[in-house]
């Protein structure tokens, strides 16, 4: 029973194997970069609330209790002070001020606009961050699959060469026609394959570690995959017209929203700074209470007595902090920011279409390369097959088979490289046109 429960626990603690979509979904949830971008939205949400708080009522209070000696008399009579041990009592004081700003001549409104647009910039930036994280995950995912795809072919070739070396060494020792050069060629082939295998195995480890980092997982976190080999490409490439792709990029890329909102934020910020010299109107109120039983209460209204008093009132007023030079300087900074956004927009206007064109062209080019490589694999496969059948009937050397195997491994490597690059180019194209990664990867 205990063993069963233990086995069940082990089974249930195993993570679900992930495909590319699953890896991206985890990355969007766990990635530190995405979390940072989310936090920046919260920062600007808080800043908006700070600006909005200007129109909220404000209350300031001060209350204290202090020891007070005895004082008798007032300003018009003789004063008697006593400091004896029994002459002390409490002095209690409360001061409260209340202010409720209600009008700022557009200054607060402009600040709110600036903060709202800035928050929207961060929202669009989060989308852009998610897209670049998804792209990075895709890159690493296909790098890992590429390295993993190479392992069986190399291992198989190495096993064949190992056997061939064993036979050749035996024949060499017995003087059966295998020369030292033949042996050296085989050893060289074996070493080359060992090098390729090491590179592939290291590639798997490095890509997996980088993938975990991008997905926001710790190195010791378990990660399993549903795919362990690059899938063959479809026979026909589905290519959408470039115009459609450019239109998609023009409407979907989050950078456009960033720029639009950034420009609006800069304009509103500049306006808010220009209005920084305007006053703020408010309703106000004040209350002062003082109580000190060891002091005589002065009833004369012309005499100020903070120790025994009740005083309060309401008012309509304005606050005005005038600093025109600083306001001008800050406004200029905001204007410069708007100009910077214009520059970025011009850069995006030319850069984003180039990204789309490059990714679409890369995708087509790698597809064509994969088709060619597929043909090469077919020919090297023929080479290996026919060399093997000839070897089996005794009419060809083992060398023909071995050379065929090496060529086959090389052609497979080229094929897998093309498939990997095609898949990465597809991910780059999705990024370039601004596909919604949340929609595409986190929903079933």
């Amino acid at each position, binding site marked *: 029973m205990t063993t069963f429960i233990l086995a069940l626990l082990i089974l249930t603690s195993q993570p679900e194997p992930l495909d590319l979509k699953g890896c991206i979904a985890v990355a969007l949830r766990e990635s530190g970069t995405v979390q940072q971008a989310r936090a920046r939205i919260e920062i600007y949400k808080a800043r908006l609330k700070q600006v909005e708080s200007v129109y909220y009522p404000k209350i300031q209070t001060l209350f204290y209790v202090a020891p007070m000696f005895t004082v008798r008399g007032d300003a018009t009579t003789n004063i008697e002070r006593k400091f004896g041990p029994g002459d002390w009592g409490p002095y209690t004081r409360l001061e409260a001020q209340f202010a409720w700003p209600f009008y700022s001549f557009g200054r607060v409104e402009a600040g709110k606009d600036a903060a709202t647009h800035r928050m929207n910039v961060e929202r669009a930036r989060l989308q852009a961050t998610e897209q670049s994280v998804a792209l990075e995950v895709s890159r690493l995912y296909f790098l890992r699959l590429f390295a993993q*795809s190479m392992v*069986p*072919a190399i*291992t*198989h070739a190495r096993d064949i060469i190992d056997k061939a070396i064993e036979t050749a060494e035996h024949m060499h020792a017995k003087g059966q026609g295998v020369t030292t050069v033949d042996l050296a060629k085989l050893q060289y082939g074996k070493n080359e394959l060992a090098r390729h295998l090491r590179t592939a195995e290291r590639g798997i480890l490095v890509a997996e570690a980088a993938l975990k980092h991008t997905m926001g997982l710790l190195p010791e976190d378990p990660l399993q995959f549903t795919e362990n*080999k690059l899938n063959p490409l479809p026979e026909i490439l589905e290519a959408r017209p470039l115009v459609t792709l450019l239109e998609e990029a023009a409407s979907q890329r989050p950078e456009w929203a960033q720029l639009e909102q950034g420009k609006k934020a800069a304009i509103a910020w500049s306006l808010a700074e220009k209005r920084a010299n305007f006053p703020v109107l408010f309703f106000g109120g004040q209350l002062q209470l003082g109580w000190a039983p060891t002091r005589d209460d002065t009833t004369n209204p012309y005499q100020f007595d903070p120790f025994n008093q009740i005083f309060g009132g309401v008012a309509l007023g304005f606050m005005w902090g005038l600093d025109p030079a600083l306001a001008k300087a800050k406004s200029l900074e905001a204007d410069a920011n708007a100009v910077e956004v214009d520059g970025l927009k011009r850069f995006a206007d030319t850069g984003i279409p180039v990204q789309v064109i490059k990714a679409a062209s890369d995708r087509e080019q790698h597809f064509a390369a994969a088709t060619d490589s597929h043909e090469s694999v*077919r*020919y090297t*496969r*023929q080479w290996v*097959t*026919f060399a*093997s*059948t*000839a070897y*089996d*009937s*005794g*009419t*060809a050397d083992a060398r023909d088979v071995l050379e065929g195997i090496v060529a086959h491994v090389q052609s*497979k490597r080229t094929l897998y490289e093309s498939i990997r690059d095609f898949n990465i180019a597809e991910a780059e194209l999705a990024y370039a046109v601004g596909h919604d990664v949340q929609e595409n990867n986190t929903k079933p």
Partner: protein
Amino acid sequence: MNLLSTVFIMSLVCNAATASTQDPKARTESLIKTLAQIEKADSATGAYTQPAREHNRAVFKDVDTYFDLKGFSASAIAPHKAKFNTKQLQSFHETFMQLLRIVAYPKSGAFMKDAKPTIKNVEPQNKNVAVMVRGYSAADDFESHTTFVWSKQKMWRIADVQFDGASLLQDYRNQFGRIVEKEGADGLLKKLQDRLAKEKASKGMPL
């Protein structure tokens, strides 16, 4: 002979009985199943164990019914026949057919077991019918596109095998032609006989 072997041989007899009524596609499916029954040589010694040898003897006989071995052998040497005397020609056929059986059958059997082949296409090819089979061995990441070219005789038999569209028969003709050209009929015979002897020595043949 144990009960399992008896049942197995009975099933082969039944297969032979239905073979004459099967079309090339059904024959291909049946061939794949039969080849997959071939026992591998012992991995430690490289030779067949006695039970495996007995088992394979029956399976090989069954596989023979799918291949037109005599026709294949005759066709492979046909362009160079003039360079052989009767005795050499007879020796060639005996050696070549034995080689095909003891080398090609087990190799095909191992691949059929590993590669889980599926029939992808059936189409006429001149007077014959070509059945294309795709197999994929995940262990060594090797994909094969093998076409069995069936010829109508008393029953459908394989006249040629194509790999990725290239004819094995044609390749043998060219290989043999090159060797006969350089080393004569005896040279070719020696190569085939040496290979056969080596295979018999390593695997404990004949079956």
